[in-house]
């Protein structure tokens, strides 16, 4: 479904954010990327979304090079990014083409899936942070995308809301069989929401380790292998720090 081959990204100021990234996501697969701040995770997502072009290498979506944003790819950010002047239903319909009548049903269905049907006529200012983020998820779901990109989608929420939304998203993913590429700082979140976890390191950003999550979908936090996996992930995140420090010193 998604294929990155030898992707590198340097900015106009000469800074190289990504180097030699190879990545493949199959249909229905859920992949998480964890990495320290500034290692190029968001940059990677922007390349996949078609918001920026790679300096070298190729980004292919279903075999086609990604040149511009694609309706088959949804994007969910850390902030909901709702238009304050649009009601919830119009924010969700924002991603859709076609006449108002044609948009009504997909909007309603997307709101139903995030459990916010009754809030269709609210303005974003009237929603709590968690509800606003669910509207953003509904907006991403409305055009029936094949791939969803999530850039630290739950990190602005408090712990309880975060766990709620993670569960919610898990169920959604199960029922829709969406491919997802999730970027997060939160190692636990990566384990709960992904089948495969890639560890990224900075200077310049590259993928340095890959872990498979072979735990049952429900209640992963309580599952037996959870703690081990978490430790393994934290170790590989730390792993590269010493050499980086030496290189800078």
């Amino acid at each position, binding site marked *: 479904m998604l294929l990155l081959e030898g992707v590198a990204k340097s900015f106009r100021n000469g800074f190289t954010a990504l180097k030699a990234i190879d990545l493949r996501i199959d249909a229905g697969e859920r992949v998480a990327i964890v990495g320290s701040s500034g290692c190029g995770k968001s940059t990677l997502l922007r390349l996949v979304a078609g918001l920026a072009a790679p300096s070298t290498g190729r980004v292919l979506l279903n075999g086609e090079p990604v040149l511009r*944003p694609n*309706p088959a790819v949804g994007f969910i950010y850390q902030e909901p*990014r709702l*238009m304050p*002047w649009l009601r919830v239903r119009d924010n969700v319909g*924002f991603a859709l083409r076609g006449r108002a009548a044609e948009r009504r049903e997909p909007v309603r269905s997307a709101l139903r899936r995030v459990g916010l049907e009754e809030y269709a006529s609210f*303005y974003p*200012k009237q929603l709590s942070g968690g509800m606003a983020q669910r509207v953003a998820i509904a907006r991403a779901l409305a055009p029936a995308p094949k791939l969803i990109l999530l850039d630290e989608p739950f990190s602005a929420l408090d712990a309880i809301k975060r766990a709620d939304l993670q569960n919610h998203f898990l169920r959604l993913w199960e029922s829709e069989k969406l491919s997802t590429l999730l970027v997060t700082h939160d190692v636990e979140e990566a384990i709960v929401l992904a089948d495969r976890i890639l560890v990224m390191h900075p200077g310049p950003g590259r993928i340095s380790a890959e872990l498979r999550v072979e735990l049952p979908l429900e209640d992963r936090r309580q599952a037996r292998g959870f703690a081990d996996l978490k430790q393994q992930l934290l170790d590989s995140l730390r792993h590269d720090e010493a050499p980086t420090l030496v290189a800078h010193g």
Partner: protein
Amino acid sequence: MVRGFSSGRRGRLKRTLVPWLVPALLLAFWQVSSMLGWIPTRILPAPTAIALAGLQLARSGELWTHLSVSAARAGGGFLIGASLGLFFGVLNGLLRRAELLLDSSFQMLRNIPPLAMIPLVILWFGIGEEARVFLVSLGVFFPVYLNTFNGIRSIDPGLLEMGRVYGLSNWKIITDIVLPGAMPSILVGVRFSLGIAWIILIVGEQIAANSGIGYLAMNAREFMQTDIIVFSILLYALLGKFSDALARKLEFRLLPWHPNFQRLSKEFRARPALS
């Protein structure tokens, strides 16, 4: 929760009446002082005399002629100045190149008070309508321009990127994200400039005009008709208040989503402003 006024019908009545208490008392005091001869009529006629003068002007039709002339000048000048301000605000807000080319010139011109231009404007246009409309447009232009420009520049870049993620054309991004996003700021500019339009018009009409409310006042001065002068001044106050109310209505209509203009629930309305 601290409540300033009780809610319900009595509370509402109180809230409408209390703000008029001080003006009403002042008016009564003024009337009584005039009647007792404490204030000479030549300095300040009694409120009743002023009301009578206004009534006579209304009856003779003079009032409506001058009023409509003034309103047309303010409205015309406002429309021209605000459209240009909006146009250049959007242009410079969107295009860095246009900003580079134009903004510093605008900033320089902005520092000239429009009223300082009066002698020059009279030389250019004489004392015809163009002079006053030009002055009003000039005064209106800058607040609308600046607020439009700032409104556009302060739009959340995340929202603009959202538009790109969903493949909106540049034109759609302007009409569906940039303009609504800048609207609160644009309307602040509009409201501010409406006030300025009247101020400039007053001065413009008093210095060089043969119609309009400012002319009415200056003409009355020659005949020492203090009542008409005071009446014209009150008229300006009313007109300013009226256009401000109009601008606020516009804000309520166009910004139902904005927290400042949300139709407040009863519970919320009952709360005093400072709690």
